[in-house]
């Protein structure tokens, strides 16, 4: 097992995996939410319009900020475990 003062390697890998899982889920949720909010579903062609592009940029930014705020609130309540 871990020696005194040394980080447990198994725990480090597990943490890295969880961090990656979190990021992947966050990304997928961002893609999905911004798609619903920004994309015209009439599918006249396969191109994104200028409006859609701007919407995507702003949506991503706002989504990220929401993530930050919620994270802060959860953190203030005693940390995410």
């Amino acid at each position: 097992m871990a020696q005194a003062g040394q980080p447990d390697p198994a725990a480090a890998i597990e943490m890295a995996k969880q961090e990656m899982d979190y990021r992947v889920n966050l990304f997928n949720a961002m893609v999905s939410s911004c798609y619903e909010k920004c994309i015209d579903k009439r599918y006249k062609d396969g191109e994104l319009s200028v409006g859609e592009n701007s919407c995507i940029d702003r949506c991503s930014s706002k989504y990220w900020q929401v993530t930050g705020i919620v994270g802060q609130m959860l953190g203030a309540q005693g940390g995410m475990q």
Partner: protein
Amino acid sequence: MDPNLAAMQNLPGDQQQQLMQAIEQMQVRDSLRMYNSLVERCFRDCVSEFRSKDLNAGEEKCVQSCATKFMKHSARVGIRFGELSSEAESQMQAMMQQQQAGK
């Protein structure tokens, strides 16, 4: 450099490999999941009548546009996600450096 990649390179060799394999598995799983959800999305948005067992020309074009649009959308979000990620990371580092300096 992606902070996760940087942290990864601090791990010993066999653990790096383990992590690389885990990442690869996650990517495969994620691709399959995306594939299925995209099919479901485009079917839901494009197909609504069943007078025939074959897609008509309009439905086919719709599905193609739907898939193309989603991939482009996903790519763009990916770029923004990366930017927001690194920005947040450098802000964190700046904050930590300030805290260190304050001691």
